[in-house]
């Protein structure tokens, strides 16, 4: 199975819009929403959930107050400042390392699994979909990304799909690395703004670091032609192909409100350009 991840570094450049359209263009693909912090793809694709999996990413310490003698050793050794002066475990700080459990002379602390989130195997109008949702204020999203990708792989096998399209999270840290590890190609979506250009260079650096081939799409290319040209020049210098130039169009928001992908919703220029870009990428993946 071939895998493509859509990333951007900077958020809000159009990853999900493009992923959704690709999903409706691909004939034989499974789609995975790996932006587990703030997943939006399901708002367009409207998946029907077939299977729910509880996900426990990290552990958390719990104190048995009958056994605790308030000796202070756990507080002294916790590097995450996760135990308060009144020996409460601070949920947002505990990284589940187990040091407190180890140093407690009274056996008053133990680690338990956190209920970190849910992973779903689903089906939508274009085929199978893997997605997830992190519980409120839970961590370890990199691990949840890995689980979503694994679910996508299983769905691909089950439904005999040869391609997995992955909607990636913004940033360059742990969840992004988990979303691009081992894929065949990344598509970095950018826009001709100074911040997006700055972020593009960093995200392409990450792809390069992990030796993953990358191509670039310039979204809203007409909002600043000068900057679009700079991106083209930068990519040329780095020998990275620009596979799509998409104009700004209100139809993107209109399609979102109609809960349709852009290529389903209209046959405007942007829809044509997305289709062209998809054909280009499909060729690269075959």
């Amino acid at each position: 199975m071939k895998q493509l991840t859509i990333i951007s570094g900077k958020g809000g450049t159009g990853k999900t819009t493009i992923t959704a359209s690709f999903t409706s263009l691909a004939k034989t693909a499974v789609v995975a929403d790996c932006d587990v912090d703030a997943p939006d793809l399901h708002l367009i694709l409207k998946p029907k959930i077939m299977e729910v999996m509880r996900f426990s990413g990290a552990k958390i310490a719990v104190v048995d107050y009958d056994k605790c003698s308030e000796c202070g050793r756990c507080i002294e050794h916790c590097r995450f400042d996760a135990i308060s002066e009144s020996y409460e475990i601070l949920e947002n700080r505990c990284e589940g390392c187990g040091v407190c459990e180890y140093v407690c002379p009274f056996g008053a602390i133990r680690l338990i699994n956190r209920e970190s989130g849910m992973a779903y195997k689903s089906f939508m109008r274009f085929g199978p979909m893997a997605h997830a949702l992190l519980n409120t204020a839970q961590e370890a999203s990199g691990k949840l990304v890995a689980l979503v990708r694994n679910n996508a792989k299983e769905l691909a096998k089950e439904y005999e799909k040869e391609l997995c399209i992955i909607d990636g999270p913004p940033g360059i840290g742990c969840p992004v690395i988990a979303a691009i590890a081992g894929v065949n190609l990344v598509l970095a979506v950018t826009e001709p703004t100074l911040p997006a250009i700055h972020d593009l260079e960093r995200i392409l650096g990450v792809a390069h670091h992990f030796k993953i081939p990358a191509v670039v799409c310039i979204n809203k290319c007409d909002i600043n032609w000068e900057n679009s040209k700079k991106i083209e020049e930068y990519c040329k210098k780095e020998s990275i192909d620009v596979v799509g130039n998409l104009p700004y169009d209100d139809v993107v928001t209109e399609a979102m409100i109609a809960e349709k992908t852009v290529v389903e919703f209209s046959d405007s220029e942007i829809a044509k350009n997305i289709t062209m870009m998809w054909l280009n990428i499909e060729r690269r993946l075959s």
Partner: protein
Amino acid sequence: MRMHAKNTRAIKKNLTIITRISMENREMKIAIASGKGGTGKTTVATNLALSLGNVQLLDCDVEEPNSHLFLDIKLIKTEDVSILVPKINKDKCTLCGKCSEFCQYHALAVLPRDVLLFPELCHGCGGCALVCPENIITEENRVIGVIESGQSSGIEFYHGILNIGEPMVSPLIHAVKRKAKNDRVAIIDSPPGTGCPFIASIEGSDYCILVTEPTPFGLYDLTITIGVVRKLSIPFGVVINRYGIGDSRIDTYCEKEAIPVLMRIPQEKRIATLYSSGVPFTKEMPEWSEKFIELFKAIEAEIRS
């Protein structure tokens, strides 16, 4: 055990103090956040900072820091930020496997003839050094990023830059937040998402400005973000950016939930163009500076009441 406690004390000095000091003795810390990326966090953070002047601006989006692009600023590196990772004296290692068994992050693997460390998985808890029966694990610094700082238009600016390929984000965010002082208002530009980097950035703030856009994605991510902010008991209000695109769903939602809408920034080509070239729009549209000052006053009144 003694060494572990000593290293722990050194690390704790570097953590953001979470106990809230009474507001009477210090200025506010305001975090600018949003679940969805690209809604305008940096636009609000930089324009608010420039409108107020004499503030600190801390860019905690260490994965993709952008605030500096809107400031006329010369940045200098102030420090490397690192976390402690184990250093194993392999000559004396008996390959007993206690360290890898203890490590919750799978950062250590003991093979029949070798012990392997995966430093990028290590959270730096120091547990392996504690449990090693031979006492042959010490700890050393591993750099994950840098902090840069500068001064511009009365703003004291700091940001963190995460190294490329580095998954550990939160320790760098804590290090940037440590730069906050009590005698000046601190404005914190947060990363997108709702996971650990987001929580590390907004934790301990007196107020959260949530920036969103009036689209289905904007609303959905806003509701997730509000869940987190409520759980952390941080008062918050909403700024709607690109007002005029999409529909009225954010207004309707905020009205129903009694959430204050602090500002509506219209979808205007001029604002978008200024943004694309790295110009804060209050510079070219000074009437908006007044609005940002009013927004700050409204927040201050709410917090101090």
